[in-house]
Structures are given as C-alpha cells and as structure tokens.
C-alpha cells in the first residue's frame, strides 16, 4: 500500500518535471516522426527488390520504429538518474522512508506513459499514410513495448547508480546501444542479413521484441515470434527490476 502510494507520488513528480522541460518533449515527439518521414519513403523503392510488397513496408517498418522508441526511451533513462544523483535529489529521497522500489519504478512508469503518448501519435500518423490497424494486436504490442521499455529503463537507472558519473555511464550505454540495435533488425528485418548475423541476433533480447512486434502489428498471434517475445522479455524485465531495486537499497556512496 505504501509502495503504491509512494510510486504514485514519484510518478507524478517525474511527469511534472518532464512536462516542464519543453526541449525534451520536442525531441521525444520529433525523432519517431523524423524516422517515419525521412526513412519510409526510401523503403518504398527498396521494398520490391527485397521481396516485400510495397503495401507491406509500414507493417515491417512501423513495429520496428515502435520497438526502437521503447528501447531508446528506456536506455536513456539513466541520464536523468545521473543528473539527479549529482544534484543530490536521489540522496534526498533515499533518506526518507519512501519505498526503494517506488523510487525506481515511479519515474519508469512515468516514462512508459509518455512513451504511450508518443506511440499513439506515431501510429495515428502511420494510419494516415496507409497503415492498417489490428486493434487486438496493437494492445498486445503495447504490453510488449512496455516490458521492453521498463526493462531497459531499470537497467539504465541501475547502471547509472553503479557508475555514478556521466562519462563511464555514457561509455557503457553508447557501447551497448549500437550493437544491440544493429543486431535486432530494427529498421530492416534481420532475415535480410547473412547467417552469422541471424545466429548472433538470437542472443539479443531486442531481436525478440522486434520480431514479436512485427507479428503483433499484423495481428498474427499464432506466430512463434509472439510467445517467444513475451517469454524472453517478461522474465528478463522482472529480473532486471529486481536487481535495480537491490541497487537502490544498497548504499550509493
């Protein structure tokens, strides 16, 4: 009960902070729209040569963008953690009796909510240019993306608490960012790549998220990618949140 209440308070706080930071809002909205506007047109010409029917371009591309958004919004969470550590905010919260789990999860949930808003805008735009919505699939996709974003956010926050300063944190995050993204087939399906890439991708959680996203976007619930995606993300998410809460409980010297 107390955890629930504290989570609400810290969710509200973080949301207010974000809303009062117009630059951040602008970037949050513009990056997915830029992907849609500046990348999709190119795909349309490439699609036939890859054996994708031109109407199916958005079906492949949009879920990838949404997964990319979830991944990026989660993994960048630690930057604000670093800032709040250095400003003494985290320490101020840690000395109160507030639930440690709430200190972690409040901002993460706030981030998820904002991601949902961005996603809704992106999907609306996509519908405008011919994307066909499968409502049930979209609902399941929202859950999947929530798991992905929460898992990355918890990972990023905990990494920030462990490294405690911007240089090491940024080095770790940037070092992980690119290989994970490239080996997930976010922009183009990994099935276009050579065998060794396809094998490596199977060690990448984001790959499962992207594959499941593509299946869910077309409402293909029967595809193995769907259960595989949830089977990989759900336990991983729980594990990472458990670890991150532990990091919060232990001292951050």
């Amino acid at each position, binding site marked *: 009960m107390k955890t629930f209440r504290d989570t609400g308070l810290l969710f509200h706080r973080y949301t207010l902070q974000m809303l009062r930071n117009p630059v951040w809002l602008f970037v949050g909205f513009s990056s997915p729209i830029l992907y849609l506007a500046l990348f999709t047109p190119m795909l349309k010409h490439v699609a036939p040569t890859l054996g994708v029917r031109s109407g199916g371009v958005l079906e492949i591309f949009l879920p990838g963008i949404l997964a990319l958004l979830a991944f990026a919004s989660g993994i960048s969470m630690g930057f604000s953690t670093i800032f709040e550590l250095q400003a003494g905010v985290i320490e101020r919260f840690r000395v109160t*009796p507030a639930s440690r789990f709430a200190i972690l999860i409040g901002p993460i949930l706030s981030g998820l909510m904002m991601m949902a808003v961005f996603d809704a805008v992106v999907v609306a735009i996509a519908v405008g240019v011919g994307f066909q919505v499968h409502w049930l699939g979209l609902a399941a996709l929202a859950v999947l993306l929530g798991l992905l974003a929460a898992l990355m956010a918890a990972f990023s926050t905990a990494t920030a608490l462990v490294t405690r300063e911007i240089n090491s944190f940024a080095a770790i995050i940037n070092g992980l960012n690119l290989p994970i993204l490239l080996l997930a087939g976010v922009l183009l399906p990994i099935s276009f790549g050579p065998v060794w890439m396809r094998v490596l991708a199977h060690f990448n959680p984001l790959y499962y998220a992207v594959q499941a996203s593509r299946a869910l976007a077309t409402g293909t619930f029967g595809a193995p990618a769907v259960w595989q995606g949830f089977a990989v993300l759900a336990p991983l998410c729980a594990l990472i949140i458990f670890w991150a809460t532990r990091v919060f409980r232990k001292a951050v*010297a």
Partner: protein
Amino acid sequence: MEAIISTTDLRKQFHSRRGAVEAVRGVSIEVGRGEIFGFLGPNGAGKTTTLRMLTTLLPIDSGSATVAGIDVARRPKQVRSRIGYVSQLGGADELATGRENLILQGRLYGGDLASVSSRAQLLMEILDINEFADRRVKTYSGGQRRRLDVALGIVHEPEVLFLDEPSTGLDPQNRAHLWDHVRALRSRGTTIFLTTHYLEEADVLCDRLMIMDHGQIVAEGTPRDLKRQVSGDSVLLSLHDEGGALARARLLISAEPYVRELTTDGDQLRLYVEDGSAALPGLLRLLDRERIALKSISLSEPTLDDVFLHQTGRSLRDAGTNTTESAA
C-alpha cells in the same frame, strides 16, 4: 544528559584502485537531546562519511550507532522517519516550486495532503520562504535555496536534523541568517548535528563540538572548554631587530614565569601566556627597561584553529588541501 545520538567505535573503509582508505577510524560520540552539535575538521577528515552512516545512507563497517534510541544498522527505516538530513547539495527539484518540493517531501514521509500543506505553509513563514514559495527553485539565490533545503529537512518534524556543511557557498550575511534559523530550530526542541570546516561556525553556533582529523576524533567539548585547553592567550610581538634585540628579547621573555611557550617567526615573537591581559603590562615594562624597541604588540584569545593546531600540529586552514586527496 539524554543522548539522542550515540556511537561506539564507528568505522568505515573505502576501497579504491590504490587500496583501502580508512575514512572513519573508531568514532565514539554522544549527542544530547536539544543540542547543536558540531563536527569540525578539514575536508576529507571523515565528517561527511560519519554523517552518512548515521543517516542510513552508508552501511556501517563496524561499531554501532543509535539515533533517537534506534539502532541505525538494524532498523534503518525507523531511523529515517525520525531524522532529517540536508546534504551539501540540497537536492531540491529545480523545475518545481519551493512549495511543491515541500509538499512532495512531506508526503514521502507519510503525511496527508492537507496536513502537509499547512505544515509547508508554516515552515515557509518560519524560514522566510513565503515570498518566493511559488517560484521555481532554479530561480532562487544561494541563501534562498539553503533555507528551502533546511525546510525540506524538517518538513516531518524530525527529532534530529543533520546538516552537512550548511553554510558552504553562503555570503556572511546569509550565513548569519542561517545560524539564527538553526538556533530557532533548537529552541523548538530539535537536536541539530552539523559538520563544518568553518571555525567561526563551529565556535559561534555549536553548543558542543568534536574536532576530527584523518577519521579520528582529536578533541571534544564546548568551544570555550576546547579553547581553554590550549595554552591560554597568545601575544604577538613585533620588534626592531637592531643589535641582536630579537635574540635578547627572546632570552629575557622566556625567563618570565608566566610564559608557557615561545616561538619566533621572522622578526616576530609569539608567546602563549595564561592570562594575556595580566601579562601585557609586565611585558611592556620589561622591554622598556631593557631598551628594546617594539614595532607592535597584539593580544589574541585562542581560536579553534589553535586547538586544531595544538592537537594535530597543522593549521585547519592549511589542512584541507593535504587531506582531500587521500580521502577522495
């Protein structure tokens, strides 16, 4: 004296690439309820580390500590609801207003919105925050921010308030203003535990203090008692050193029964005497009789810096720079 904070042989080690650093080496303290208790020492002396152990932010390596009668290591949660802590950084949300900060803080301590709002209003009046309470914190001046930080630390009416270097970065006027607020808090029954590396702050504000160096306590007592431990007052004589006057004066003065210690520094003689104002006439008569010309003479009562110097062989003003590195 009812002890509200007590520690026994508190220790903390940090491990870095260059090996282990003992930041706190056996600190035992007792702080009475309703005191303003100070921790004085140079940067890196272990003051903040001790404070962080007492406020549940850092695990205790060995030794024990109780705050408000509760064991810090075993029941950190209960300790947290009884203490307030204002770090050097403060940590208020810059994008929120002072009032919003206070209300959130109060609610994290479990208060309901109505009672927290009225408590926040009261605190803003007490600490002169009202005028800018609904402005965002990033527009606050240093003194305004510090007052908000203190308000955040006491929003839940803690029994003990911990202040880590409360007046760092404040100008003298704001510093004096803050001291008034701290005294007012004490008169309302809050115990205040603060760290400082300002001699004046320790001297003027604290009822009792402890001097810390290299993780250990080197002296403890009221500022008055501590200063009395050092050899009385110091007299500084500046002489015209003609025809060996300095050497002659040194010899003569050191033979005087009331002189405890004598040091030379250039053309200056510094002597420590039991009672400076009683010793001056005799000194002047002696020098006059021996026709030794004086440039100037000054008398000063001992400061806490003299206490530190006496205990560690270094001046507190110089000590910070040597020790920060080893403790970082």
